């Protein structure tokens, strides 16, 4: 049995407008909160990330952006470092917290 193909496009199903603002973790902005949509990687990376709390639906915050190098995130009460290669496989969607909707009016 081969590891099953990973359905990267699950976020495009049945949700209006979904995926328009999605970014990879490598391109995520510091200070912003995101929700994990999917992990487009092999079985081992998915296991490793899952055991550290990186699962779809989980929200995370970017502590140190990793446009070129590793990225540091805050998730489930801990801080994780993900290398550039791994962070390009984690697909995120920005969450607009009430705090940020404040700037909306200006």
């Amino acid at each position, binding site marked *: *049995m081969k590891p099953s193909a990973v*359905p990267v496009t699950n976020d495009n199903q049945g949700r209006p407008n979904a995926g328009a603002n999605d970014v990879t973790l490598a391109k995520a902005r510091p200070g912003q909160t995101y929700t994990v949509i999917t992990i487009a990687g092999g079985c081992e990376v*998915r*296991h490793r990330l899952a055991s550290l709390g990186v699962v779809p639906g989980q929200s995370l915050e970017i502590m*140190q952006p990793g446009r070129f190098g590793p990225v540091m995130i805050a998730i*489930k*009460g801990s801080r*994780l*470092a993900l*290398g550039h290669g791994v962070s390009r496989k984690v697909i995120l969607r920005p969450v607009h917290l009430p705090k940020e909707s404040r700037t909306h009016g200006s």
Partner: protein
Amino acid sequence: MEAKTVQVAFAGNPNSGKTTLFNALTGARQHVGNYPGVTVEKKYGTCQVNGRKIEIVDLPGTYSLTAVSEEEAVARNAILDGQFKVVVNIVDCSNLERNLYLTVQLLELGVPVILALNMVDIADRRGLAVNTDKLAALLRVPVIPTVGHKQIGLEELKRAILAYQSAGQPLHIDYGPDIEQAIAELEKVLDMPGPRRWFAIKILENDPALVRRLRQTLEADHPLWSKLDHVRQKLIAIYRDTPEILIADRRYGFISGIWQEVAKTGVETRHNFSDQIDSVLIHPVIGLPIFLILMYLVFYAVFTLADAPTRWLESGFSLLGTFLNGFWPAGSDSPIRSLLVDGIVGGVGGVIVFLPNIMLLFLAIALLEDSGYMARAAFIMDRFMHRIGLHGKSFIPMLIGFGCSVPAIMATRILENKRDRITTIMIIPLMSCGARLTIYSLVIPAFFPSHWQAPVLWMIYVFGIVLAAVLAKVLRVFVLKGEGEGLVMELPPYRMPTLRSALIHMALRGRMYLQKAGTVILAFSVILWALTTYPRAPRQITAKIADPAQRKSVELQYAAIGRLGRAVEPGIRPLGFDWRIGTALAAALPAKEMFVAQMGIVLSVGEHTDHREPVLRDQLRRAYSPLTGLCVLIFCLVSAPCLTTIAVTRRETNSWFWAAAQFFGLTALGYLLTLIVFQTGSRFF
């Protein structure tokens, strides 16, 4: 009747304070062994309670019972074996939700578990209260609050271990109708002993180690495979995600439910202070310079502090040699005297004098690790390591390699990916280890004016690092192809390291080093002594030579090692080396530090004068050119890692191929580089 010794295992996340608690319970009564068949270090220790002995095995830290790396497989297999009365699961109370992920899996497996709710003080200080009674009731396990470094809760934990009766039913998490159906279908085709539901879940999760093992034991047309493929595809079709993610998600959901019941706080404050430090220490611009300065300070401190104790040891061994010499009349050529003084005291003593260096380096490494900075170093270096085809975590073993290649190669077990691991193992000998420093500190002052000594030493270290980077890249491009796994690592909050833990770590490493000196080095010292002494020159020849130094030289040419040196001389002549350096290089095979001792012998320096080193340097300066000195440095850095390193590489890679490739590959590389340097250099100087 109950057995007098109770066997328990410590399991938990890395950074959960597991090792601190283990140290607090067992103190110095610790041993390091190896798990049979694999190379992961097995740490175990004992403690006493009510006249009963508790033997604790400190399992490698894991985040989950899914085995991806070798360490995780070891931890899981030890738990699955069922040899332990209880598995004490240490969880970091201030990061409970994530830590419970492992706990829940242990409970699903149905093994007897005691939960040690560690670091309750930190959680408490941050306004987090966990209702332990409720947690115990919900999970149906004993829960003991502990604070490892303050010795809180230790007695309660020991008593709970003794009082533990038996595990209840395995925890049954409801994974929802679709997944439950898949589990049930897999259970039907599984005909193996043990916790069947658990195996079914793990297979459904596509657990790498388990699937690999089943592939070896079950035939390819076993109904399990088609069934597994079927149920996985079905789940993917329904949920558009793989079962491992779905199952992890449900587990976190279950934990989240427990968390809401037992915890009183919503404010997350664990990292405030830590985040502030990180905004400086891993800053994209200033993080790297801070790291380099810190490393420089660490090495400077280690070598400065080790200076005095090293000299005490040196004079101690020198006194011991003189003392032993006193039992024989002056000028005696008794073989026993020679074996004791020249062979054993000279050889083993020459190695033991580096004990302070090694111990302090490991103390520094333990402090860096315990404080949480080591993970940041890996983070900072990740960008660079990525360029050479490795990732940041490989940097930690490389750093340890400056102390000694042997523990460094063992430390590569933190790397999950086999290709990363082998690449790192292959380049570790290029990190100038403590033993090579002895060669540098003999040779550099002999040939270079004082204001050049520090830069030359610095350059030889950097040369090793650059060469390691090039070699890693070459290996990744041509031999160990394929994409690396990439860095995935927790950055634990900064903590004040406890001196006690660091000292225990240092003592353990020191003891292992002494063991090596007492066994391997002792054996090689005796062999080397025999090769240097026998066969003896005929008396009628030596009797004619009045000068003792010259006589010694003639004797040496008769001895096996002299003949060996002469035999290899044509081969090393193009590098600028003569037969005497040849014998020293041969002597350095078992341990690099032997080079210095052997140069002393071949250059006929009296072994037990107080001014041995300066005299030896004078002799070197007279006998060789600075270019040869430089070539010795380069050759000793690159070529032939010591035999202990090769043995560890063989064990860690489980392959003679890599051990042989490391030995011959690096020797060939060292030869080539030295050849280029000498041949180019001798054109100009």
